[in-house]
Each structure stands twice: as structure tokens, then as C-alpha cells.
């Protein structure tokens, strides 16, 4: 039973997350590499430079984001299935594995550092999210009762 009805349940949400992260990366990559390409081109070629930079680089950024998102979602689902709990630790653990998995080609030290960094980052995100949630939560208020009860 999932609480959030804006998201699909577990195995399918991986696909959603992959796509979402990919498109996020592509859009961000367009902005980033558009500006970069524009600035790195000579006058007169700036528009063309921006577009060619976007064409060459934005899909790569999208792919990177997508891989991260998909991997994270996969680990998140796995952790949920194993722990059978839904709390903030899921994201932290999933972040740990994601950071580690993406850095595994860099060797043991790199894998470890990257995993810890990623877990810390997600821990901070989750912590801030929970703080916000508590901050936004408001105590329930009593309704205003008229002094004299209504007589039916």
C-alpha cells in the first residue's frame, strides 16, 4: 500500500523515475550547455554554437541524470521490500547504494567515499523535508461554538 497516489507502486515507479530524471537532465543540460556553447563560440556563430553544444551534450547530461534516478529508484524499491518499512532511512540507504554503484569503477576507495557522500546528501534532504513537514503541520483547532446550543 503506497500513500502517494501521484506515484505508481514500486516496480513501475522505477521506469517513471528514470524518465523523469532523464527529462530533467535534458532540460537542465539544454540550459547549461546552451549558455556554455553560446559563451564559448566566436561572435557571429554564437547561436549555432549554442545549438550544437546542446545537441552534443544535453542528451549526455540527461542520460547521466536518468541513470542516477533509475538506479536510486531501483535501490529505493529494493530497500523498501527488504525492510518492509516506510521512513526516511530508505532514501538514505538507497542513496548510499546508488553513490557506491555509480563509482564502483573508480576503485574501492572511490566507491566508499562516493557512497558515503551520497548517503549524507540524501540524509540532509530527508531531514530538511521532515523539518519542513513538522514546521508546516498545524495543530487542529476547535470549531467556534455559539454560546447557546441550537434548539432543533
Amino acid at each position, binding site marked *: *500500500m*503506497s*500513500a*502517494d*497516489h501521484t506515484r*505508481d*507502486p514500486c516496480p*513501475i515507479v522505477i521506469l517513471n523515475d528514470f524518465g523523469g530524471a532523464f527529462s530533467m537532465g535534458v532540460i537542465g543540460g539544454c540550459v547549461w550547455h546552451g549558455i556554455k556553447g553560446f559563451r564559448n563560440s566566436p561572435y557571429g556563430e554564437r547561436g549555432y554554437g549554442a545549438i550544437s553544444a546542446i545537441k552534443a551534450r544535453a542528451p549526455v547530461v540527461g542520460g547521466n541524470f536518468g541513470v542516477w534516478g533509475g538506479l536510486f529508484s531501483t535501490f529505493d524499491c529494493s530497500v523498501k521490500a527488504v*525492510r*518492509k*518499512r516506510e*521512513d*526516511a532511512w530508505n532514501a538514505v540507504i538507497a542513496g548510499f547504494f546508488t553513490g557506491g554503484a555509480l563509482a564502483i569503477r573508480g576503485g574501492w576507495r572511490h566507491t566508499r567515499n562516493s557512497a558515503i557522500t551520497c548517503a549524507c546528501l540524501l540524509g540532509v534532504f530527508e*531531514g530538511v523535508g*521532515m523539518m519542513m*513537514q*513538522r514546521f*508546516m*503541520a*498545524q*495543530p*487542529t*483547532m*476547535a*470549531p*467556534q*461554538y455559539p454560546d447557546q*446550543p441550537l434548539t*432543533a
Partner: protein
Amino acid sequence: MLRGSTFVRLATNVVKSNSRGVLTNNIARPMNSLKFYSTDKNDTKKQQQQQPQSILNEDMLAKAGFDDPVEKEAKSSESAEGAEESDGSETDSKSSRRKRRAQTSKDLQREKYANWFYLSTLVGGVAGVGYMARDWDSEEEAKRLEASDIPNGYSPDLMYNRFNARLGSLFTFFQEPAFENLLPPPAPEAYRRPLTLVLTLDDLLIHSEWDTKNGWRTAKRPGLDYFLGYLSQYYEIVIFGSNLQMYSEKAVAKLDPLHAYVSYALFREACRYKDGKLIKDLSLLNRDLGKTILIDVSPDSWSLQPENAIPMKEWDGKPDDTLIKLIPFLEYLATQPVKDVRPILNSFGDKTDVIGEFAKRELKLREQWKKDNQHLFRNSSRPNAGTFLASLMGVPTSQVSKEPKMPLDIIREHGQMQYEHFQKYLKENAPKFLEEEKKLKDEFGKITLNKLITEGAPTPESIAKAQAEKAQDA
């Protein structure tokens, strides 16, 4: 590597020949030549010193993967010397190569910063642990952390225990309910209903399902409207969901659009989270525990007050009439002068089949009552003046001579009548209520970002205040 070193050598040759060329062709460049003549030897030296900095300095070469020829020679001689010790020298050369790779000035700087970072993290961590293991600041702190049994003192285990207690308190901040009192104090006497009924939302009142065709769909349990509408006259109904407010509040709003049935709605924010269990702590409800009933589907929810709970099976979305069947028992509880519901609930044993058990008891009660009040039945079946007159007029006797009613049935009839009245009242006034709510939403729903940042979101208090002022004006 080989190509790289020759390239370097070539480059140095070029620079050297160039310096020589400058010396020979100094007449062609008189501006420079003056200086050159005056400080001939020094200048060549300087230029030799400068030459690695010219274009291909060590940093760039190292970055490009080229070895310094001098060092390479030294290494080769070294390896020749240590050729006998085969394995050790190989790993040594490997590590030394890696080390040399990291020897650009930028890398050195980075390494330095990293070391500072590690050091400060270590120092900070040790200091933090020490600070958290300190003596209790006051008696209250120890009491607050439920660690009064850990005395002050600096033996390792005491320090560790204090550290543990303080560390745990950092996390319990997130696990405790957000508020001390989950509900405002009970309503004034005139509005108060005898008991409080706490219902969970998911899989008791509604059920959500997902499939590939339709996505998420939420079903209302059969008889839910009647259940809420009927019991709201006896109970202060509180919906206490296990999901977050942002996911569940819309469902609650749809169940009770006129705010007529559900007094309050609480969500996961109000739960206690401990050891992976989501606990609904009824003692925080600000209500008499003897007059509170919790109906839930998860054993974790009532683990603190099992005696207040009526456990139910999770509803799977199929047609059923459990809610309707549950009404007689709850109605009975609320209409009897009950001081404490807990002994009554506990008389049902493990409470797995409260409905069936109560039906059995009710039947027994009925038989007993019939036996005790036989004279009433005798009277009713006997023909009297009323039935005689009715038969004369041609009215069926069943309408005149009603069977005597058990008090339970009288209460039920009364309840149903009231329910119908209330429904009629709601139906007549629904447009008015909805309009009022919309007005309220228009007034407080329009929150600009500026206002949100400078003043914060409107609290329920301010809304209630404004509402009260408005009511006074009108």
C-alpha cells in the same frame, strides 16, 4: 612514454638553441642585446631556470601523462638495482607512479585541503562525541530523555550511556508526534457527545488500488456515509490516518464535504514512530481514555492502548457490510451510561469477532427481556377498544396494536429518526454551507508568496479569529 620524453628533450633543445641563437644574433635585436651583454652569464642561467616554465611546465606534462625524463632515468636505474627483488619493486614502482601522477601543484593543493577537511572532521567529531557524553546539564534533561537512571560521572560506560541517550533524542524529535495535545479540549457540555470514536482511514473506510489500466483508484467502503452520519450523533468522530496529511486530507474532505460528521482529522504527523512501528498514541488525544474507542486495522496502531481498540480486518475493496454491522454495537456502547468502555471491550476476549459476539449477546438480551416482560405481550395480543374500533373502521389491526418495544429498539428508532432529520437539515443547507466554505477559502486561500514569507501561512487560530469577528459583525 618514450615518445613523450623525446619530445621533451627536443623541446629543451629548441629552447637551448634559441638561447644560443639570441646570443649570436644579438645585433639583430639591439633592444635586448644591451641587457644581454651586460649580464651575459647570469642571463643565460636565468633563462635556463625559466625554460621549464615556458610552455610545457611540469604540471602540464604530468597532466598529459608524460614522465619527467630525469626522474624516469632515476627510476630505471632504481629498478635495475632492485631487479632481484621482483615483486616488491614492481608494486613499489606502481605506487610511485600513482604518487607522481598526483604531484601537480593543483593536486597537492587539493590534497592539502582534503587533509585539512579530514582533520577538522575528526576533531569536530571527537569534540561532538565528548560534548554529547558530558554530565547532565540538569535533572530535567535526564528526566526528559527518560534516562534518570544514568548518573553523572566520567567513567567510560556512563559517558557512553549518556551519549547514547542524547543521540537517541536527536532522532526521536522526528519520531514523536508534532504536537503535545493532538486535539483541542473537548467541546462545551452542550455540544459534547458521550464518546470519542477514532477511525483509521486506509483499508477501514476507504481502499486504494492500483492497476495498469486505471492507475490509482480509491473506493469508499459500502455503508460508509450511513456509518459516519448515524454514529456522528453519538460519537465525536476523529479520523486518524496512517498516511501523511498531504496524501490523505483530500480523501477525508471528500468523505465529509460539509464537515458534518467528522469532528477532527489526524494523520501520520500525529503518530509516534518507534522501532518501525507506527503507533497511534491515544493518550495524547486530550480525551478521557475511558471514553475513547479506536477502530484500526494494524496491530501496531493500538500497541500502546490495546484495551481501547476494536481490531478489524483490512478491507480489500470487495463488497461487504461490516461497517453497517458494526453500528449496533457502537450505538449500544454510546447510548448506555458507560463510565469506561475498556472493560466492556475487553469482555469480548481477543475482540476478533466483536460483531458476531455482540449479535449473540443482543439476541440473548432480547429473549431475556421478552421473558421478563411477558405481561406486555399478553396485553398487546389481547383485543382492546382500539383494535375493536379499528376493525370496525376497516383499518388493519397491525397498525394500531404495535408490538411492545424493547428499550434497545426504542433507542434505535429514535436514532434513525434523528439521523433522518439531520440528513434533511444538511440537504436543505448544503448549498449554503458549501458557499460559506468557498468564501472562506477565497479569503484565506489566496496567499501570495510575499505574504507567506513575511507573515507565514495563516494559522488555524487566525482563521478562527477572523471567522468569529465576522460572526459578531453579522
